[in-house]
Structure formats: structure tokens, C-alpha cells
């Protein structure tokens, strides 16, 4: 059953931030990927013409920041066409890529098409997690791509996902970023959805690891000054207040999955009891303003205690619905990251267990690499 938009919520503004997950296909197998673990059973990808229609309809509603992501968006050979259409319509386009497949001819074509910005993610492209920093192949690929990005006069923006197995190398990572000429580095601690949720027991760092990484980052920041700006995103499991996830569902963010399913957050597909509309059947306007899936968590009427009467509810919107669902089984509960949540012990418990595991054996269970076969794909 759908609920009407809460009486206390004004008409939602436009979906300013449009994220197109062009494909779930990806040459990498990252254990911290937030893509759904059943991505192999997701329906066929939208065709070029369908993506262009999404861009037109969203732009007419007021979408202006465009993320092109995946999977690896460069796997789509129509990426240049999509970028050119976005530019023509007035989007500011951001490509979020691992760099695998970013050859000079493609980068030249993307620049020509009007791509505004590139964020290069640093991932492990081998199955040997612990060796990834010494993985020459990865380093050479990233260096080559970094050089190309500078040659085509894009700012060099590097994103590195941190977890238990690499957080101790944060100093090496920052030095590598400096050698690559990075101007911005985002050290983003893993968020536990999708494949990362499946591997949480293996990826959560200890409080000690986190503290050391922050100290190393602070020292590095002092040394390089304004030459390189570093953002250290603390994992929310170590916080006592939740993140204002998506600035509230259905407020500014509209994500379109590879098969055309519209989502109020990339991870929302897992939320039970909601039917997410497809751009193949429903207009973007109707999806954004009328669909029960986008109205469900707008406003405050859905909130339970302690959120409902909390003076901070307008700031953090009760945190993340997906995290509430994954940890407590009810997406309308407070995000258990909040220490006012009756379920907060589930978060501190996970961190405590992680610390015990680290103290005992470093690898109790095997990691599950993001993999086509593991994802439910039919052979």
C-alpha cells in the first residue's frame, strides 16, 4: 500500500542530481562494491535511445548534475553519445570510472562530446587484496590514465575505498596519489551494502586502524598543504549520529539502474515492499512526483521513535533506510548508527566482533569477490 506524501512535506523540489548506472558489467571484482549481489539476474540494459529519453525528461524536470557510473561505464560503447546528449541539454557531467578502458582516443572523444569531470577510482584489479599496492599492473594503468586526465586538462580527482585490508597503507596510498599528480583525493571508507555487506565481517577495520589512518592523513595534509586536498570520509559504523543519507530519500537524488529501474538511492533496490518503477513504462515526472516508491520515505510521516520526536530529524532524516533495513529488518527504524536507536548495539557489536577477529585470525572466512557467477547470472 502506498501512503500519501506527508502533510508536513512541501512539494518536492527537482531531482537535481541524476545518476545513471549505465551497466552493472565491470572488468573488476571488488569485494566492497555496493552493486546488488544479484546483478547477474537483472534485466537487459537500456538501449542508447532509452538513456537519451531519460536525459531529456529529467533535464526538463530540472536535473542538472549528472553522474555516469556503473559497473564500469566505459564498457558501454555509446558513452560518448550519451555524454554529447547530456552536454547539449545543459547537464554538468561527471564520469565515475575505474579507468579500465579509458584509452586516449576515447578520452579525446569524451572531451569533444563535452564531458565536464572525471573521478578516477582506485580499486584492486587483482584477486590478491593484500598485494594490491604492489600490483604493478594496476599502478601502471592508473598512472597512464592519470597522465591522460591531466593532458586533457581535467582536474585529477582520485577516489580510494578503504577497508580493513588496505587502511593501514593509507600513507602509501597518499604518496602514490601525490606521484600521480592528484589534486583531490577522497579516502572513502567502505559503506556496507551489496557485496560489501556480504563481506562486512572481513572489511570492517578496528578503531585503532581508523585512528592511525586519520593521524597519517592529518600529517600528510600538513606536508602537502593546498597542493592536494584530501577528504577522509569516516565510516559511519564508528559514528554516533547517522549520515543524512541522500539528503533524504526523494529530495534531490534520482538514480536509474542499468535495466531502467528508478531508485531514490543506488542501494534502495533491496528495500522490501516497494515496487520501483521502470523508465521503460513510466515517465520521469510521474516517477519522481507520483510513484509510491519515491513518496514512501519523503517527509516525516513514516518515521518511528526515536526519530519522530527527535530535534535532529530535519538534519539527518533518520539516516539511511537501507542500513536500517539491513541491520534491523525494518526500513522505517532509525539508522542504528545513531546511539539513540534501540538497535545501536548491532553496530557497536559488529565493530567489536571485527576487533576480536582482527586480534584472533586475520582471515576467518573467505572473501566473496564480486563475480558474474556469484551474482546469479545464467550461464
Amino acid at each position, binding site marked *: 500500500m502506498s501512503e500519501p506524501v506527508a502533510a508536513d512535506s512541501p512539494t518536492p523540489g*527537482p531531482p*537535481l*542530481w541524476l545518476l545513471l548506472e549505465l551497466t552493472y558489467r565491470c572488468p573488476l571484482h571488488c569485494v566492497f562494491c555496493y552493486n546488488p549481489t544479484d546483478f547477474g539476474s537483472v534485466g537487459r540494459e537500456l538501449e542508447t535511445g532509452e538513456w537519451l529519453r531519460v536525459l531529456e525528461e529529467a533535464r*526538463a*524536470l*530540472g536535473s*542538472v*548534475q549528472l*553522474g555516469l557510473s556503473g559497473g564500469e561505464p566505459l564498457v558501454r560503447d555509446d558513452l560518448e553519445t550519451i555524454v554529447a546528449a547530456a552536454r547539449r541539454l*545543459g547537464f*554538468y557531467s*561527471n564520469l565515475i570510472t575505474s579507468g579500465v578502458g579509458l584509452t586516449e582516443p576515447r578520452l579525446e572523444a569524451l572531451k569533444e562530446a563535452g564531458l*565536464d*569531470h572525471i*573521478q578516477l577510482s582506485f580499486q584492486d584489479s587483482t584477486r590478491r587484496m593484500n598485494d594490491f599496492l604492489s600490483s604493478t599492473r594496476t599502478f601502471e594503468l592508473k598512472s597512464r590514465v592519470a597522465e591522460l586526465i591531466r593532458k586533457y*586538462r581535467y*582536474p585529477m*580527482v582520485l577516489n580510494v575505498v578503504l577497508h580493513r585490508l588496505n587502511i593501514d597503507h593509507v600513507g602509501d596510498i597518499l604518496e602514490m596519489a601525490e606521484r600521480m599528480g592528484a589534486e583531490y583525493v577522497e579516502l572513502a571508507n567502505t559503506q556496507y551494502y551489496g557485496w560489501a555487506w556480504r563481506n562486512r565481517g572481513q572489511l570492517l577495520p578496528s578503531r585503532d586502524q581508523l585512528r592511525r589512518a586519520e593521524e597519517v592523513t592529518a600529517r600528510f595534509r600538513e606536508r602537502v598543504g593546498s597542493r592536494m586536498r584530501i577528504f577522509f570520509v569516516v565510516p559511519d559504523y564508528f559514528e554516533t549520529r547517522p549520515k543524512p543519507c541522500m539528503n533524504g530519500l526523494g529530495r534531490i537524488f534520482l538514480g536509474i539502474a542499468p535495466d531502467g529501474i528508478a531508485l531514490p538511492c543506488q542501494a534502495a533496490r533491496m528495500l522490501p515492499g516497494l515496487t520501483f518503477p521502470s523508465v521503460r513504462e513510466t515517465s520521469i515526472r510521474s516517477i519522481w512526483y507520483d510513484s509510491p516508491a519515491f513518496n514512501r520515505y519523503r517527509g516525516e510521516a513514516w518515521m518511528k521513535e526515536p526519530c519522530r520526536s527527535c530535534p535532529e530529524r530535519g538534519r539527518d532524516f533518520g539516516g539511511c533506510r537501507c542500513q536500517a533495513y539491513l541491520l534491523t529488518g525494518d526500513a522505517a527504524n532509525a539508522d542504528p548508527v545513531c546511539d539513540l536507536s534501540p538497535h545501536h548495539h548491532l553496530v557497536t557489536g559488529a565493530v567489536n566482533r571485527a576487533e576480536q577477529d582482527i586480534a584472533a585470525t586475520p582471515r576467518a572466512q573467505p572473501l566473496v569477490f564480486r563475480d558474474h557467477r556469484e551474482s546469479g547470472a545464467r550461464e
Partner: protein
Amino acid sequence: MMADIDSAARPTIGGGFRLQWEPAQGTHVLLYPEGIVRLSRSAAAILTRCDGQRTVANIVADIERAYSASGLSSDVCAFIQLALEHNWVELGS
């Protein structure tokens, strides 16, 4: 103390930023990687004139003419100074 801006400098929109009119919001905005700044009418009046052709003196004169006002120099320069600090504009000469 705020440094004085050379009235002969020719400001232009900073690299990585794009200034455009948003019909859906009825405002000018500045776009940058994963971000957006909504501009007031007076901020938009100044930034739309930061085209690398006009000098700061030209921009002031232009705006005074457009608004049939005088003595706007210090307001315009203060805003350009702020815009420089945010890298919204760069100075050519």
C-alpha cells in the same frame, strides 16, 4: 585587509565551473564537480559579465548602467573578491 582588485583585470569564469541559466529553478547557477551554487540576481548580473573581455571597470560601468545606479564599484569589487576566493572566477589581464 582585502586586497584591491585591479580595475583593468579581466575576470573570467574559473576552470571546472560552468555558469548557466536554469529554467526549472528560474535562477542562474554555477556548476562544478558534483556541486551547484544558486546565484542571486545581483551575483548573476556580475558573473554573466565575467567573460574575459570586460575589465572590472567595464563590469562596474555596465551594471551601473543596467540598474540606473552609481557608486556600485565597492559592492561589485567585494563580490568579485569573494568569487576569486571560491575560484568561481579567475583574473586575466
